[in-house]
């Protein structure tokens, strides 16, 4: 059970990365991005491309760092992929979502457009890489470390926790201390008032997509490092992402962090009683429960 809990935290931290991005986009654009899971997929595969393609051609060394399952190539691929997927999200916004926003399209049309985007991204991945499962480093043995209290955890997974903590801390500082970060919080609170105050809300929207996409990419890569890559990996995350964001109160970044951990642990612990393939269903059940019992989430006030 302890192992399940520990792995639940690892998985949950990956879910948090996606949920934070999802909730940021929702908070600022009031838009449920059904393509967010597939942005995670895109991130994982862009990293795969970089590691097996350009970085290989550039002659960047391939050895792994000690007990970890990756090396310099992945270390460099991570930021590259984050920027690329941030750009991908922004591209979809420019080409599709923004046009619909300016037309005054309703919530549903926008959500449908993001559903379409999710399929487009997934099909592109399938066209370029096929439907087989992929690994960043096939055939590598990855033994677990034994820690006190009977906790077993792989070195990769420790790094995942560190990386997520790092990214979340950076985001926190950005939102609290920088001018653009505060502008993002203001826009999420009240976009009209932000405009009235002279804040360039278009720039805020650009930053939002870049950050949301980047975090999703990181989540996808970390999952790929820990488990595997396949074209449907992001879609399988969609329910947990939404569950986490809603649980933590939609629009609340810190809530999404907590929500992600809760969902991750719940999903892992559920494997003690249910088949692992039911994990998305577990996330879904929790989401339905929250929507019935406390739709405003853990951190929501009594207002809707």
């Amino acid at each position: 059970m302890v192992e399940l809990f520990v792995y639940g935290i690892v998985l949950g931290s990956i879910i948090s990365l996606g949920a934070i991005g999802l909730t940021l986009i929702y908070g600022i654009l009031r838009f449920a991005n059904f393509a967010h899971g597939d942005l995670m997929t895109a991130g994982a595969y862009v990293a795969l491309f970089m590691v097996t393609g350009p970085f290989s051609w550039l002659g960047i060394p391939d050895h792994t760092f000690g007990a970890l399952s990756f090396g310099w190539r992945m270390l460099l691929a991570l930021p590259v992929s984050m920027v690329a997927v941030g750009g991908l999200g922004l591209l979809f916004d420019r080409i599709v979502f923004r046009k619909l926003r300016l037309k005054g399209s309703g919530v549903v049309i926008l959500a449908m457009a993001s559903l379409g985007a999710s399929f487009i991204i997934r099909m592109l991945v399938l066209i370029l890489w096929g439907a087989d499962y992929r690994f960043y480093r096939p055939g590598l043995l990855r033994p677990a470390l034994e820690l006190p209290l009977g906790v077993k955890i792989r070195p990769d997974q420790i790094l995942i926790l560190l990386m997520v903590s790092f990214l979340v801390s950076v985001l926190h500082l950005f939102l609290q201390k920088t001018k653009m970060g505060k502008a993002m919080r203001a826009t999420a609170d009240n976009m009209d008032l932000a405009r009235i105050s002279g804040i360039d809300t278009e720039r805020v929207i650009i930053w939002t997509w870049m950050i949301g996409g980047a975090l999703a990419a990181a989540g996808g890569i970390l999952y790929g490092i820990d488990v595997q890559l396949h074209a449907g990996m992001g879609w399988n995350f969609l329910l947990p992402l939404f569950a986490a964001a809603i649980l933590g109160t939609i629009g609340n970044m810190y809530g999404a962090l907590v929500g992600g951990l809760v969902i991750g642990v719940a999903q892992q612990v559920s494997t003690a009683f249910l088949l692992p393939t039911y994990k998305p269903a577990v996330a879904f059940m929790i989401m339905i429960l929250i929507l019935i019992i406390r739709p405003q989430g853990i951190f929501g006030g009594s207002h809707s």
Partner: protein
Amino acid sequence: MILNIEDITAGYSEVDILHQVNLQVRVGEIVSIIGPNGAGKSTLLKTIFGLLQPRQGKVILNDEDITGLRPEKIVRKGISYVPQVDNVFPSMTIQENLEMGAFIRTDDYRHRLDQIYDLFPILRERRKHKVGQLSGGQRQMVAMGRALMLDPQVLLLDEPSAGLAPLLVSHIFEQIREINVTGVAIVIVEQNAQEALKMAHHGYVLAMGRKVLDDTGDALLENEEVGRLYLGG
């Protein structure tokens, strides 16, 4: 004269709310706009601030035609606007709300921040509190403070006393007078016609989207018709 509204006709979608409205604001004046609900008072403020495009007419600020400019541009020209509702950033602190007010300033605005805190001392005390937790009166102060951070020449206030307890209403009007003393011209739309006219240098009565009366604040207070129709409550 710093703000001149000429023959404005404006409305939402097909229907015109305002019909050929004229209004002038002189430097340092308080201009109060009163009238029944639905007269178009708020619509007039929105049109001045560029939230609404007029079908006809002009908005002229210091001899510059600013008709139809977007709010982001107008706020940079020296007009600030305080909406009636949703006029603060609730999840941010008082200090952060004021900082957002100063967002487009490129200079060191701490001096201005101090001035605003001098005007609203209780805000200084509670500046690290989230605005969503404040009372209505304090929120209104934050709303006005945010708008003042840019040192505007003209401040547009949409029903600042709406929803406030009677005790706070006179307090708010006191503060509006104090703001005006510092040299800011104020255009105030109000349901509370009595108080609005008492402090006004000039008053306008709007009904059915048209200007029906236009006189000094004192003259309007003494006007029988105005008294009967609008000052009863």
